[in-house]
């Protein structure tokens, strides 16, 4: 079986030859595509630092084989902003001090974007905390993270309302 795959990464179609079927999406992004914003924390699906969106859904990229995701559409932290305009979740993390050292932040932000798109948490801080429980923050910035997700959710909902109107 050929180890050539095609992925759309942050809007760009990439033809990729894998050296080995063991390569995870996380290692592919970091080592081969040099998109090092996605972080490798535990590499075992426990910390959430490697969270990316695959076909619009947040997953742990450390537990995903690249070869199995042939044809997928991938969004990483590098694709969150539009040019110099930060994604509302990114802006809200800055406004609410949603980080300290910053290592978990790309995963937190991609997880938050995924959570908001899932539409299950709404404006309930407890549901946001539960929905974000797959992302650990050793600095303990959880209070700011929850506030940031709630604000970003409000801004995105408002934006959607304006677009519909």
């Amino acid at each position, binding site marked *: *079986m050929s*180890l050539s795959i095609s992925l759309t990464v942050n809007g760009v179609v990439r033809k990729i030859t894998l050296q*080995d*079927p*063991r390569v*995870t999406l996380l290692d592919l992004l970091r080592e081969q595509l040099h998109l090092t914003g996605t972080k490798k924390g535990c*590499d*075992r*699906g426990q910390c*959430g630092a490697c*969270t990316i969106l695959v076909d619009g*859904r*947040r*997953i*742990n990229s450390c*537990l*995903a*084989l690249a*070869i*199995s995701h042939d044809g997928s559409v991938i969004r990483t932290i590098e694709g969150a902003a539009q040019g110099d305009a930060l994604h509302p979740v990114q802006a809200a993390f800055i406004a609410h001090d949603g980080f300290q050292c910053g290592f978990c932040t790309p995963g937190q932000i991609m*997880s938050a974007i*995924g*959570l908001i798109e*899932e539409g*299950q948490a709404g404006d*309930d801080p*407890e*549901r946001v*905390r*539960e*929905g*974000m*429980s*797959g*992302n650990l923050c050793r600095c303990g910035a959880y209070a700011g993270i929850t506030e940031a997700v709630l604000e970003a959710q409000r801004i995105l909902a408002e934006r959607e309302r304006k677009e519909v109107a």
Partner: protein
Amino acid sequence: MNSFDYVRPASIAEAVAAASQPGSAYLAGGTNLLDLMKGGIARPGRLVDLNHLAGLDRIEALPGGGMRIGALRRNADLAHDPEFARRFPAVAEALLSGASGQLRNAATVGGNILQRTRCAYFYDAASRCNKRQTGSGCEAQGGDTRSHAVLGWSESCIATHPSDFCVPLVALDAVVEIEGQAGRREVALESFHRLPGDEPAQESVLAPGELIVAIRLPAAAASFSAHARYLKLRERTSYAFAVVSAAAALRTEEGRRGDGARIVEARVALGGVAAKPWRARAAEELLVGSRLDQTAFRGAAEAALGDAKPSGDNAVKIELARCIVARALTLAAAGTPERLPALPASPFATVPGALAHA
């Protein structure tokens, strides 16, 4: 991680043929398998990737109120299917109490049933483990046994099955559809997992190459939808395996002489206590005809743990399991909530001063 051949079959028949070769493993969500491979605990020589098989994630409503769920259905997609959650709310609650949002988006129905134990000695390649290597011994015994079995364990193995999902499924008589080289067969989930005995490496009734293609919930399972809960005690608020858990489902009717509601049929199952999801039939029988009160629920809890014995320093789990059964029955009796609580399956109030599930 060991090297492996990667195979992408075009049909279920091709998948079964490929996986029937020794040393093969199926790849679905990968959330458990890749973790085990990274730890050197699983070392398959060939991965048969199911992710590109069309239709294996289908969910179908069956005549009469049952449902059939394809094995490749992702946990999040199943839990958030409105019709599924309406018919089987305790199953949706169990799914949403497990793992994290990211993992639920990847993990599958079939993979959840087949997930391996979280026994730390099984996960530590330097420890002796009869599950990993038959006859090598069990280092868990005499070790840290806080998470280990109190029912159905043997001298060979005291590990538990970690699934939340399987607990309400076994309570509701779910059936596993299996495809193999000899054709298709069905096994009740209750008979699917094996107790360890002296062969703890043989965890299920699956023969080499056999594939779970779907699970079915019978129509009768939907008749409990008004009084069905899953409850799970964890060592942290979220994103943790159960110390003990319970599913409870009731059918009730008003008494004839205005003496209050009575239980017509009950279903009770436990998680985190044995090598398989544990159906508590003695508790169910005791509840039939009972009133919806604490005497009945506590009696059922006693019966559910009647055969329990500690496998180490874990006698506390027996009382915790009794408590979680009584609590799950209490909440099931109160009625399935309109919307799942913010913390699905949590026995604790998380807002200071508020009642749990108020």
